[in-house]
């Protein structure tokens, strides 16, 4: 598979990837390196992993990072309740201590969390480590170790080697600076807001029955909106919501009804300051230009 076939395969699954992104993804697959995707919220970073899993016809395993994420949530945890029960039951049955110990620290009592699960699959899955910048530095360091060795050591069971190497995709949107070590270990692709052409094709791919006129208007409007000084610029997901809202409301032309346009801005602008920054007149002007 070359990078162009990967690009078309992704397009078949409804994801229009830029050349840079497709190339980075292709290299990440052929070199077996994790891929770090950075970009503003809502430009489709997470979607890349979902589509890649669909293209490769494999499972997507997702680890959502958050502050305070620890090994018990990310890698594995023992099922303590069952262990307690087993110990009780064993003492009634007169099982020996050694046997109990071997039994309660076995696979049966192990709760797999995403990272462990990802390296124990028969077919290499896509492992998505979402919003890595939300986890804290300590977790990042731990993750590095797993990403380089692809093995996990559980003190009670020994080292578990990866049966297959998962395709790893990390996403970040700049909540915090990532360590150089992590950046070095990964290939990198920056996912920008799409240009006019790309966004048009995304919209058409998602909503094939949209009229050409409305489609051009929506994309023009959202692109113009991104040039405004906004706190949170609308991403692709927002643009698709906006299109769905307009189609649901039966709007054929953006400039038709200022009230509907203003109301449907709820799908694009998500803070009070941004709503105030785009009053009806501005919205109308932008819509007029987009037409």
């Amino acid at each position, binding site marked *: 598979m070359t990078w162009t076939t990967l690009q078309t395969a992704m397009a078949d699954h409804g994801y229009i990837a830029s050349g840079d992104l497709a*190339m980075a993804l292709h290299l990440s697959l052929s070199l077996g390196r994790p891929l770090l995707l950075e970009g503003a919220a809502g430009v489709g970073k997470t979607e890349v992993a979902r589509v890649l899993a669909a293209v490769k016809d494999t499972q997507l395993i997702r680890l959502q990072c958050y502050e305070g994420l*620890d090994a018990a949530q990310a890698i594995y945890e023992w099922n303590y309740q069952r262990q307690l029960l087993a*110990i009780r039951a064993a003492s009634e049955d007169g099982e020996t201590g050694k046997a109990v110990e071997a039994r309660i620290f076995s696979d049966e009592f192990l709760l797999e969390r995403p990272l462990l699960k990802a390296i124990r699959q028969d077919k290499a899955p896509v492992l998505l480590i979402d919003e890595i910048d939300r986890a804290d530095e300590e977790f990042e360091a731990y993750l590095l170790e797993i990403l380089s060795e692809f093995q996990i050591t559980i003190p009670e069971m020994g080292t578990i080697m990866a049966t297959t190497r998962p395709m790893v995709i990390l996403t970040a949107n700049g909540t915090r600076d990532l360590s150089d070590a992590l950046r070095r270990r990964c290939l990198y692709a920056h996912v920008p807001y799409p240009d006019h052409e790309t966004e048009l094709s995304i919209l058409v791919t998602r909503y094939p029955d949209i009229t050409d006129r409305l489609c051009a208007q929506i994309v023009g409007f959202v692109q113009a909106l991104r040039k405004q000084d906004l706190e949170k610029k609308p991403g692709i997901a927002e643009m698709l919501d906006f299109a769905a809202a307009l189609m649901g409301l039966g709007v054929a032309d953006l400039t038709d009804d200022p009230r509907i346009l203003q109301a449907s801005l709820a799908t694009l602008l998500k803070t009070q300051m941004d709503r105030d920054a785009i009053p009806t007149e501005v919205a109308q002007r932008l819509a007029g230009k987009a037409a």
Partner: protein
Amino acid sequence: MSRVTKFAARDPGPAARMAGFVGHLRENGLRLGVGETGLALDALCHINAANPVEARRALKSVFTGCAEEAAQFDGLFDSFWMNGGRVKTRVTPTALPTLNENVHSSRDANAKGDINSGAGDISAPDGGDGEADSDGEGKLVATDVANLFKKDLRDIVRPEDIEAAEKIALRLGAAMRDRKSRRRKAGRKGDQIHFRKAIRQSLATGGEPFALPKRHRPDRTLRVTAICDVSGSMTVYSSIFLAFLAGLMRADTRADAYLFHTKLVRITEALRDKDALRALARLSLLADGFAGGSKIGDSLNTFAQTYGRRFVDNRTVVMILSDGYDTASPDSISDALARLKKRGCKIIWLNPLKGWDGYEPTARAMAAALPHLDLFRAANTLDDLAALEPELVRL
């Protein structure tokens, strides 16, 4: 630009060229190791390396690591492979015209990274006659923005002060250390049972958990980011604040420091110098425009939009040391503070004027800032700073 660079016939081959390219990137500030060179060659085996578009994309994903590098990469690629950077420029150090001490070109503030300017040695003590470089035109351009008086900070701050400040900074840092982590660890006392240990230990007693090990939430340090105003109106207090910053940097390896007057400068690296005096010398080089006018709003905005995004989070205390006299509109200050506040940090404003009897924060800028502050205190001596300790504990 469109023509591909022709390499000399004695060129040893693709691997050497790649090494040359990596060297070129390194010279331009990308941090790359030997591993990346190998990885890049591997990557080229997986694509059609003869196609410049493909090669560019592949190398981009290998060599870049953040958005800024990605933006810079295309230019660097062109200059190496596309016949842009093969012109040999011999850098001959030209004799610098000696200029009157009070006259400085605005160029030297702008000519960042100008390799031809002789005075580039950042660790060399500041001789006082500046590095006013001319571009060979022999003209001096009057400046309307930056007041480029040069002050040698070593005249202002004494090393003893730094030592005293370091002690205070250590204490303040310790005072702010009481934020609890969300991740629990095994500990002697704690609010939750550490199940893993409990089960392990209960095996010895036939499944009967006699000892109940606990998990607790360990302390987490807050990181201090200090932003110091060194404009004209602050001159009297700068020495104390700069000593405090220098002390803070030396006491706390995670602290961050910035100066601003009409623009914002990051001084963390300069202040981390092991030699306190040399740190101040380096700082003097950075603090162009020291004791000029101040643009608090603009500077804070710059901070909120650039460094703030990377370094300020919910475990940060932003400490602003300024008198709040601003020439620009007060709105920009409150905007900037609101933006910072959204990142979840605490904001402390230390105002030297507040120490005066009967001071009211009437400066418009100060009034605009007040609603966003977690703490607003007076500080114009090191003792005042030390007295902040109990307040910071409660933060």
